[in-house]
């Protein structure tokens, strides 16, 4: 089992331990945070010097972000043309396969359509649930919620994903040289139906991504709130603030970092890694973005 560390900033290099064999560098969620060429070079040299494998991670992008990525791909290709690249955007995939054919491509977790909303954890327990609420007079009222009984036939839908189970997708990926997919360690359990020895899985720990947006809720979060319009200037507040979101109906605390929500699951959701296609664990020392 290969151990990798995912960093999005240079200062996170301090978290690297001797048992890591690979560095993931980049980001998945925001084109404003795409690395500069100089920082990319710095991490590449660090990896080379410390005999670590290197994976470059790219986000979903507009045409503007695609231009930035293209210039980084040029640099990367000159440095190590077989470098592993994680794509989270089909446009980035199209760019990489047509213009940088020697890259080793891995399909990012945003394109693996796992169901990640934490309320699924309760739903799949298929239990009735009781709780106490206040009535109009301030007294306690017991309220019993009966969850809809989900048929077991839905388990591989809610614990699996299209990309990790559909043979027609596997054939497509293999024919385009994609032999690795990146997946979240979702708390409801994980079903994998991948062709043996043809497609491998990297499993991300402990932050499970839930949702993401261009309408960044963190951009301008410290600014004057008088203007209700949603587009606020990005002051990279995501590099300073994290928001913890809790709600009685949500079984996990949600962490909002920048434009993306996550929850934490430290427990491995797959019973036997030895028999599974998971051959790499990717650790996040901190919330990315």
């Amino acid at each position, binding site marked *: 089992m290969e151990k990798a560390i995912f960093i999005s900033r240079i200062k996170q290099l301090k978290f690297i331990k001797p048992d890591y064999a690979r560095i993931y560098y980049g980001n998945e969620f925001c084109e404003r945070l795409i690395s500069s060429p100089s920082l990319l070079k710095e991490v590449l040299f660090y990896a080379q010097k410390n005999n670590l494998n290197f994976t470059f991670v790219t986000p979903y992008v507009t045409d503007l972000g695609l231009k930035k990525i293209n210039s980084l791909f040029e640099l990367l290709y000159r440095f190590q043309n077989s470098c592993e690249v994680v794509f989270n955007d089909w446009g980035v995939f199209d760019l990489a396969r047509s213009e940088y054919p020697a890259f080793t491509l891995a399909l990012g977790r945003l394109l693996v359509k796992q169901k990640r909303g934490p309320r699924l954890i309760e739903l799949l327990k298929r239990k009735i649930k009781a709780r106490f609420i206040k009535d109009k007079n301030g007294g306690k009222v017991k309220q019993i919620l009966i969850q809809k009984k989900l048929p077991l036939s839905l388990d591989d839908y809610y614990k699996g994903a299209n990309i990790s189970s559909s043979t027609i997708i596997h054939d497509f990926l293999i024919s385009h040289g994609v032999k690795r997919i990146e997946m979240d360690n979702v708390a409801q359990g994980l079903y994998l139906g991948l062709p043996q020895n043809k497609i491998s899985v990297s499993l991300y720990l402990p932050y499970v991504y839930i*949702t993401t947006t261009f309408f960044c809720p963190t951009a301008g979060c410290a600014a004057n709130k008088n203007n209700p319009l949603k587009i606020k200037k990005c002051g990279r507040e995501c590099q300073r603030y994290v928001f913890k979101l809790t709600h009685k109906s949500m079984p996990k605390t949600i962490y909002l970092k920048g434009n993306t929500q996550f929850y934490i699951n430290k427990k491995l959701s797959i019973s036997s890694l030895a028999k599974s296609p998971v051959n790499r664990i990717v650790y996040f020392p901190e919330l990315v973005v």
Partner: protein
Amino acid sequence: MLKISVPFREEEEVNALIDAGADELYCGYLPPSWERIYTDLEFERKGGRKSNFTELGVLKKAVHTAHNRNVPVYLTLNGLYVNSQYPLLNKIIDQLEGIAFDSFIVADLGLLLLLRKRRLKSKIHISTGGTVFNSRSVDFYKGLGASRIVLDRQVSIDSMKNITSAHPEIEFEAFIINTLCVYIDGFCTFTHMYNLYTDEKQKRIPKDTKEKKMLLSIASSYDIDSRADACCLKYDVKTIDLDKSDIIVDKKIKPVFFKQLTDGRECGACAIYDIALTGVKSLKIVGRQLAPELRLSDTRFIRACLDILKDNKKIKKDKFIQLAQDNYKDYCGYKDKCRGNNCYHPGVIL
């Protein structure tokens, strides 16, 4: 001129929506064979029986009615599917082949590959779930046989210009009213909680003495918050300042949750002036799940906005926005001045 793509779910709606200004219609279908095995959750993402046709014969008749008025009909099949569902999915597509849909709207890569392999007569449109934000993503889907791309709600006017000008051979569709998701549709992995809890009454009452003392309520109505979509919950928010490694109590520093600022309807009508200058061909009215009268008034509203452009080709942008906002008040029953916080393209009205 831009077209209007409108959702429908009953045959009786077809003529009324076309009369109101619909140029294209789209609908969903929840097959009973699917619902029996997999429930009404997530075959095509929108609200089960309340949003979709459930009888093939009725659907066929509705498509026929639309075609008699020369209006194309697109079938939304934009769920995500796992391998065990493919045998049934294939059978359903067999059935659907007997109906002359003009296109299938798909989000799932596997279904897209399947439709391509089956060489169906219907065209393929890529749903907003296809997450297209740049020109090369269009290349990707074009290579897989797509003839139209439904752009994500968060694609800016500038991006629309870039993407459409790079691909004049592809049709593009942009959202124009209702359901402005805060998060990117195709990257949001929350399960929306349609019908999560049953309306059945709980019959077993726990025998615990302490509990007996309390007033026991049967959950015939539920906490609205708990049933709401996760993006609309009123969370308790704590802010952590990473520079100080501590939790801040300063309430001034909070994320902006747009859904909690809601007043009025989610709408992008003011941007029609700018969208018309891009290569976008069709405006999508969202809301298969909405009441028929609402979809009808939405169609009339967007048609009225397009008529402003049609009737006065030299109209200035400011004047168009003023007239569009007047229409918004008239058709959407909104009395106040538009504040823009439910606006698809707030940059347009700044």
